[in-house]
């Protein structure tokens, strides 16, 4: 295990472990944390730890940068709100922006890139039109095949970029590609979404709302009168389910340590305030056909970050070892390691996203286009 990212895992799990680090150890830890886009999170975790002067300056930089990313992310959300002011349906923030908007621990120091939002699938054309015509966003890709591919098979619109701010927005209508095995209940996600509590103080622009907590079964296409004045976030269970789906059921686990840290924070924070949280989560995950993903993500978080999960969720599954090997495949120079494990997970990510016949067709089209180019 020498030289791999277990040092980073340990530092996040228990900041006091960094007291044993020498200069070499710190150097490796910082390079790994940067490569995994966890340097801001690490800086936040270590804010009360005694660290060498040189390290504290690096961590200050990381905190300052995380502050900038948070400000920009909330501003992008604000801009989207303005562009969608005349849209009647719910607009739900996802991932990093949702965490900081709600003031959740998962958002502390977190790297945030694009803005991700979720809307009703049948409203995609309306939302798209508002963003393009009123918001100043433009398509990134003009490629017809990729466009059709997105529209037919993906869980989001092709990415849009803002013409002046150079920031991307991903508009989702569900949380997994349509071609993937599990079919999450997208209406249920929207229906159960809630307003970020102003008390948690993420500070979304117009948020003077006296929070209308969406009822679980309120149909999303019927806007609640309080819809004006802000954005929604997923319910606590759905948020963890989305996080697990993103980590386990979609993608090749690149940046997985960060997503798993999100999972750890969400489970820990929500289960502290709601004693039934885990039971509700299992029920809800089953409803979304994502219990295996949630279960695995919870086990991995427990194993790596020491997340407190129910006894009956614990236990060891044969494949978990491979996930851990993949998640920690990073050396002290910030380089990816374990090429073979990475390759396996890369292939797996394509497999998960689409049935074999479609995968073959997809790769063939890509290949033909590449060939034409030469």
């Amino acid at each position: 295990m020498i030289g791999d990212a277990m040092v980073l895992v340990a530092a996040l799990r228990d900041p006091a472990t960094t007291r044993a680090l020498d200069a070499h150890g710190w150097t490796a830890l910082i390079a790994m944390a940067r490569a995994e886009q966890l340097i801001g999170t690490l800086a936040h975790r270590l804010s009360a730890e005694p660290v060498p002067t040189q390290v504290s300056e690096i961590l200050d930089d990381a905190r300052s940068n995380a502050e900038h990313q948070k400000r920009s992310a909330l501003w992008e959300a604000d801009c989207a709100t303005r562009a969608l002011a005349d849209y009647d349906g719910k607009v739900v923030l996802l991932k990093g922006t949702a965490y900081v908007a709600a003031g959740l621990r998962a958002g502390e120091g977190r790297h945030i890139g694009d803005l991700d939002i979720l809307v009703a699938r049948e409203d995609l054309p309306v939302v798209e039109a508002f963003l393009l015509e009123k918001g100043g966003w433009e398509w990134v890709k003009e490629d017809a095949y990729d466009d059709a591919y997105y529209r037919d098979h993906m869980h989001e619109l092709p990415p849009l970029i803002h013409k002046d701010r150079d920031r991307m927005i991903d508009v989702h209508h569900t949380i997994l590609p349509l071609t993937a095995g599990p079919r999450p209940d997208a209406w249920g996600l929207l229906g159960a979404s809630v307003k970020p509590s102003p008390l948690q103080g993420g500070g979304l622009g117009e948020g003077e709302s006296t929070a209308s907590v969406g009822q679980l079964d309120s149909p999303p296409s019927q806007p609640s009168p309080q819809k004006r004045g802000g954005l929604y976030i997923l319910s606590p269970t759905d948020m963890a389910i989305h996080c697990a789906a993103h980590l386990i059921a979609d993608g090749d686990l690149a940046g997985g340590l960060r997503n798993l840290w999100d999972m750890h924070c969400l489970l820990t924070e929500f289960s502290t305030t709601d004693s039934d949280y885990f039971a509700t989560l299992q029920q809800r995950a089953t409803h979304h056909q994502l219990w295996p993903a949630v279960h695995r993500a919870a086990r991995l978080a427990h194993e790596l970050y020491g997340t407190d999960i129910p006894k009956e969720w614990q236990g060891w599954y044969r494949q978990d070892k491979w996930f851990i090997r993949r998640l920690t495949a990073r050396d002290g120079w910030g380089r990816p390691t374990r090429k073979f494990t990475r390759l396996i997970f890369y292939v797996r990510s394509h497999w998960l996203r689409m049935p074999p016949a479609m995968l073959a067709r997809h790769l063939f089209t890509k290949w033909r286009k590449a060939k034409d180019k030469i």
Partner: protein
Amino acid sequence: MVAPTKYYIAEPADQLWVEPLDAITLIYQRRSGITHMVVEPVPEILTAMGVDAVTAAALVAKLSDQFDLGTDEDAEAVVTARLEELAELGLVHRTQCDA
């Protein structure tokens, strides 16, 4: 259908750091972290708006109390254009009523 009268409300003054340089005035917006470089009449418009929701017409009246606006241009059209430009950037906000 008659379009309802548009009201505008300025971003709260404590969110803006306004720094006049020369012909150019800088506006740093704290909430967005974005810097804008503006020229006349933008700083004057923002100041004249104060804290209330105003219409373009009311704003023109307010401005002409303080400044000589000349007579050549359609002042309300220009002020509306600037308000819309500011609204696009999130420096002023469109609102339904003056409440």
